[in-house]
């Protein structure tokens, strides 16, 4: 990745000129053409994303198994999440993905100010997503719904006492809501960590985009980061229905 991302190192430029086939500063001398370099960069990025599929895939698989085993606990625990915030967050992420895509286009057509504006918007939407997520986490903390010694099952054994229209769970099944919340925090937490890393890279991209690094025909870093950002969106598109929408219609 580094070779595809690096731009203008004077030493490389010099070495490239000696080989006599470098026309652009971002074209590294070990690639025959700029297209080949771009292709290699995309290929490497996709390989990385495939390892990410396997990483998140393991957690989705665990979710699938435990959901089948402890379905009643998963339903009741899932129904305690806020569909409203979840849906808003989904739309926020899709919008940030759209802005990122427009940012790639802006880099392609060499419009620096539009590129910077789109990268900033993407960043702000990412921060908005994380703020809403923080609100959700905080609520779970207050309700003692974070798995561990302080986990409180009373909301699931006695839902009527909390004004919740759910069938009460026997204590052993109510304990299994911890499995749901463990997976909830593991999956959304890893997703959030990816977003935090993404926001850091976005800040770096913004400072370089402001300098005009990506508005002179060199779009690989923006393009490859966009792949990463869209991938995070796609992970969330699975998390949203699986965690928030397990069984929202009234139980019979």
């Amino acid at each position, binding site marked *: 990745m580094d070779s595809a991302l690096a731009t203008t190192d004077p030493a490389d430029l010099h070495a490239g000129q000696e080989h006599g*086939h470098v026309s652009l500063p971002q074209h590294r001398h070990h690639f*025959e*053409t700029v*297209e*080949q370099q*771009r*292709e290699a960069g*995309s*290929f490497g990025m*996709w*390989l990385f*994303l*495939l390892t990410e*599929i*396997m990483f998140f*895939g393991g957690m*989705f*698989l665990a979710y*699938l*198994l435990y959901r*089948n*085993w402890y379905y009643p606990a998963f339903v009741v625990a899932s129904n305690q999440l806020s*569909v409203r915030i979840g*849906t808003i967050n*989904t*739309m926020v992420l*899709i*919008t940030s*993905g*759209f802005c*990122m*895509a*427009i940012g790639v*286009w802006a880099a*392609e*057509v060499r419009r620096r100010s539009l590129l910077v504006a789109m990268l900033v918007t993407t960043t702000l939407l990412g921060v908005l997503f994380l703020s809403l997520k923080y609100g959700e986490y905080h609520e779970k903390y207050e309700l003692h719904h974070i798995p561990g010694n302080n986990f409180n099952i009373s909301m699931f054994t006695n839902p009527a006492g909390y004004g919740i229209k759910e069938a009460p769970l026997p204590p052993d099944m109510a304990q299994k809501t911890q499995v749901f919340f463990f997976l909830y925090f593991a999956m959304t937490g890893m997703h959030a960590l990816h977003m935090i890393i993404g926001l850091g890279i976005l800040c770096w991209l913004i400072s370089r985009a402001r300098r005009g690094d990506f508005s002179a025909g060199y779009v690989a870093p923006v*393009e490859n980061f*966009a*792949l990463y950002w*869209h*991938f995070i*969106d*796609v992970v969330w*598109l*699975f998390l*949203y*229905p*699986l965690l928030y*929408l*397990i*069984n*929202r*219609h*009234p139980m*019979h």
Partner: protein
Amino acid sequence: MTDQATHAHLNDPEHAQHRIVTPLQYFFVYIIMLALTGLTCAAAFVDLKWANAVIAVGIACTQATIGALFFMHAAFQSRLIKLTIGAGVFVFLVMVTMTMSDYMSRSWGMW
């Protein structure tokens, strides 16, 4: 490298013509993604028994495919990259299928 050789490269499986997706195309994709999000949310509130989960996962897969093809430009990539993406997804499905078949066959009829 001659122009001819460069041109011939574009027909190789490793090379694709670079294509710029327009903002209008991105906007259509964006609207479709939002509409599908609304649909999956609405469908969750209707009692469709086992079909609820199938619809939710089906819509998520549709969104992921649209996102990968257009936002992530997979539709315009070389055959090499398309094959790589397909292989990765396939291996993931193998992992899920093999693991689930093991778990389900161990507790046959109890799930």
